[in-house]
């Protein structure tokens, strides 16, 4: 007994010793960033101890089955559609030369710029009674064939078509960077094009595809506007129902926790599936991909395939929006929109920069730290994306208000005067909230590019006495730049269209285009929402086009 006790003490001592030996400032920085980002999530998790509200049994009995089956259906159908749209387009664009390739490269990102609930409204507008399709068919003297899009499949389609760019962006970054030498090797061994793709490229692109797919699935689970409009009850509509209609925030938090569990198990399942695989490549390949030029007929075929998702995800909804904008132009348009665009643009730009830096810091500081559990802890940073924005807002408000209250009391005591909140209700809190919410959007594409950077070169550099920072800027940064740019674009576009956080946390004088669009749409003035929505799309198009140039050029 005695012996066993002393060996326990010994092992604890040993562990402590190792902890002390292995801890460095990167461990502390990782912990700080994780804490900052996870604080709102933890605040919400802490609320779980209060137990669910009294309607919990009512929800389990009458509603939960519906929520689970609908959410599950959306996850499966959206995964499939997004995979097909995202990976095929990424591959064709990266591998082949065909007409309008350069334009399509960035057009494929733009569906992301339209808030999915607006896409939902636009599709309803096309297929509705008296909708665009009916008008067009009537014009050609045809019988009106009504397609009902307002159902589960319609919702899955609308969400997939507006979210597939996540997969497209991250997968293409991989193809552009890595595929060339693999292709050459495969071709030299006499393997055909299609077989190479399925046997070699696709398995290797897996981390990149999954990175995008996880973002899509989180966003799908998170959607409120489109699901609500189409009358499909999901976890998130349930969260809003129990929070606002049943007046039980505790129950809403319980449902969010279930949702979080679902997301977490998806991530873990994927990690477990590829547990033993290592994805770093020995070579650093900066040579741009060699594009195949095929015959005219094939080129036309490829063009048709690539333009299909752009047509459904961008041109059709935008055409509908333009039609509405023309109808409502005189009553809605105001020069104020230009000002609003500038304001929204700057907020999105700042947030994207902050978020990308935070994500990179998190990834690398956890890499440079040597304590295993801190490495795992750094994964917690991405959870903010899985929770509905409105719930994140509460997680932000509780701690920031606590700090503010403390500061206000302190200042009142010292100076005898009181004044307003310092953090809450300022731009600072808003950007912080965005960073919490969108860290995953930046984290995943950057992480998937770092996975391919072999440790050998940075390690060699450090053996030669070059510090972490210098090594990062000299060696790693050029290699992961594509990932960082992709991350920047995604966060930027996401912030442009973000709604619930902005609504709750924005300062008095600040307004965004998304809020403006929502003001109209929530009042059933969907047509009037077209002009601010188009402004969102144009504002998003500027950096998308520009950054895409940086991304593809060497």
């Amino acid at each position, binding site marked *: 007994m005695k012996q066993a006790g002393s060996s326990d003490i010994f092992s604890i001592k040993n562990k402590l010793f190792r902890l002390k030996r292995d801890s460095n400032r990167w461990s502390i920085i990782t912990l700080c960033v994780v804490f900052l980002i996870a604080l709102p999530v933890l605040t919400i998790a802490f609320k779980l101890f209060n137990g669910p509200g009294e309607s919990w049994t*009512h929800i389990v009995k009458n509603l939960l089955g519906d929520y689970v089956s609908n959410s599950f259906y959306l996850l499966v159908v959206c995964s499939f559609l997004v995979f097909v749209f995202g990976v095929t387009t990424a591959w064709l664009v990266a591998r082949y030369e065909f007409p309008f390739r350069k334009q399509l490269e960035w057009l494929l990102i733009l569906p992301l710029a339209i808030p999915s609930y607006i896409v939902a409204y636009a599709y309803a507008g096309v297929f*509705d009674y008296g909708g665009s399709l009916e008008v067009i068919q009537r014009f050609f003297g045809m019988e009106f064939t009504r397609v009902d899009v307002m159902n589960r499949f319609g919702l899955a389609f609308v969400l997939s078509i507006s979210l597939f760019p996540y997969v497209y962006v991250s997968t293409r970054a991989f193809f552009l960077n890595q595929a060339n030498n693999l292709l050459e090797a495969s071709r030299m061994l006499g393997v055909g094009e299609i077989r190479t793709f399925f046997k070699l490229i696709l398995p290797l692109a897996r981390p990149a595809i999954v990175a995008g797919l996880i973002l899509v699935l989180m966003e799908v689970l998170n959607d409120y506007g489109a699901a609500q409009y189409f009358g499909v009850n999901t976890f998130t509509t349930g969260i809003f129902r129990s929070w606002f*209609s049943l007046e039980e925030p505790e129950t809403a938090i319980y449902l969010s926790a279930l949702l979080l569990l679902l997301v977490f198990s998806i991530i873990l399942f994927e990690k477990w599936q590829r547990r033993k695989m290592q994805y770093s490549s020995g070579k650093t390949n900066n040579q741009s991909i060699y594009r195949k030029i095929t015959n005219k007929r094939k080129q036309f075929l490829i063009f048709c395939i690539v333009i299909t998702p752009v047509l459904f995800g961008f041109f059709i909804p935008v055409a509908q929006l333009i039609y509405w904008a023309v109808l409502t132009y005189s009553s809605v348009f105001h020069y104020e929109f230009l000002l609003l665009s500038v304001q929204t643009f700057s907020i999105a730009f700042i947030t994207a920069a902050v978020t990308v830096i935070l994500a990179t810091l998190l990834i690398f500081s956890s890499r440079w730290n040597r304590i295993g559990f801190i490495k795992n802890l750094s994964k917690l940073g991405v959870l903010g994306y899985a929770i509905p924005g409105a719930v994140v807002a509460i997680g932000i408000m509780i701690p920031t*208000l606590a700090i503010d209250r403390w500061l206000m009391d302190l200042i009142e005591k010292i*100076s005898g005067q009181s*004044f307003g909140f*310092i953090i809450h209700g300022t731009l600072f809190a808003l950007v912080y909230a965005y960073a919490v919410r969108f860290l995953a959007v930046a984290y995943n594409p950057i992480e998937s590019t770092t996975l391919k950077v072999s440790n050998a070169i940075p390690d060699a550099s450090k053996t030669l006495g070059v510090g972490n920072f210098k090594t990062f800027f000299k060696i790693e940064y050029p290699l992961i730049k594509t990932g960082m740019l992709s991350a920047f674009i995604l966060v930027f576009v996401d912030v442009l269209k973000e709604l619930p956080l902005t609504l*709750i946390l924005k300062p008095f004088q600040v307004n965004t285009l998304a809020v403006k669009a929502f003001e109209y749409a929530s009042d059933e003035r969907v047509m009037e929402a077209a002009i601010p929505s188009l402004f969102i799309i144009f504002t998003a198009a500027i950096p998308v086009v520009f950054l895409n140039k940086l991304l593809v050029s060497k």
Partner: protein
Amino acid sequence: MTKHILIVLMALVLFSCKNETKNEDNSQESKEISQEINVYTHRHYEADQELFKRFEEQTGIKVNVINASADELIQKMTLEGDKSPADVLITVDAGRLHRAKTSGLLQPISSMILDSIIPSHLMDTDKNWFALTKRARVIAYAKDRIKPEDLSTYQDLTDVKWNNKILIRSSSNIYNQSLLASIIANEGEEKAKQWAESLVANMARSPKGNDRDQVKAVAAGEGDLAIVNTYYIGMLTNSENPEERKVAESIGIFFPNQETTGTHVNVSGAGVAKYAPNKDNAVKFIEFLVSEEAQEVFALSNFEYPVNSNVKVSETLKKWGSFTEDKLNLSLLGENNKKAVILFDEAGWK
């Protein structure tokens, strides 16, 4: 290590000094422009912005606005507590005003002006909130298929003759919740539950879309009747889209329950926040919003019924005729809201 702590401490001291000076600057500034008012509002119409501007011009009080859904604003006010900058809360239904009141976010206001203009059933029993405008929940029917003589009450819609004919949106919509809450208040929970269940059985399709979509579906023949808000039909009638105007022309408006309780109405209303830093301005502001001048703007530009009886309704609403409204005190809608939601779920009303 101690060196680090010292640096941190010094930084903290410096930071707090900086804050103090900033604080003094701020308070001096705020004295100069203390004439302001912070409004948390769910209403985001041009008419409202126009009215805020007029109020600023007439009184010199600057109106700061935060627009969000009422639920989120209530949540925000709750968390901000006694430090909340909010002076006035405006929502588009009585239920949420009642919720704000029971959460202790509003305060009673005694104002001769408000008492004299607003009918007593359109304000809180403890004068925590006051209605600004009204919307009626009516039946829109297909003129070519249905005779208005066949229509009578909300209750009659549960009759088997309307099987597969009724269109109505999801039960997550507050106006449906308020309607059921009014039935609970008027007839009791048991009857209300039966009503919800039988209405679900008569639905032409599973609930989806908004009020405008229900009316469009009636026009297209998917059903014969839609239960909708007058406010949205007003917008449909005056839509910029010719297709939508055509839809509006093909339907008629029926005010139910004229012989019994009266047609169910909901309101948009305002209350003064409990911790309002500018309470006097807030009261002045609400008084202004129910004045004839402001009510005219509401009535003419927004297809709502004014609460000020001296003000005429808009041309669109006039065509539908006058009606008797349910005089149930609107506080009861809030009190029964949660019960209504649970009944909806049990009845399988999506």
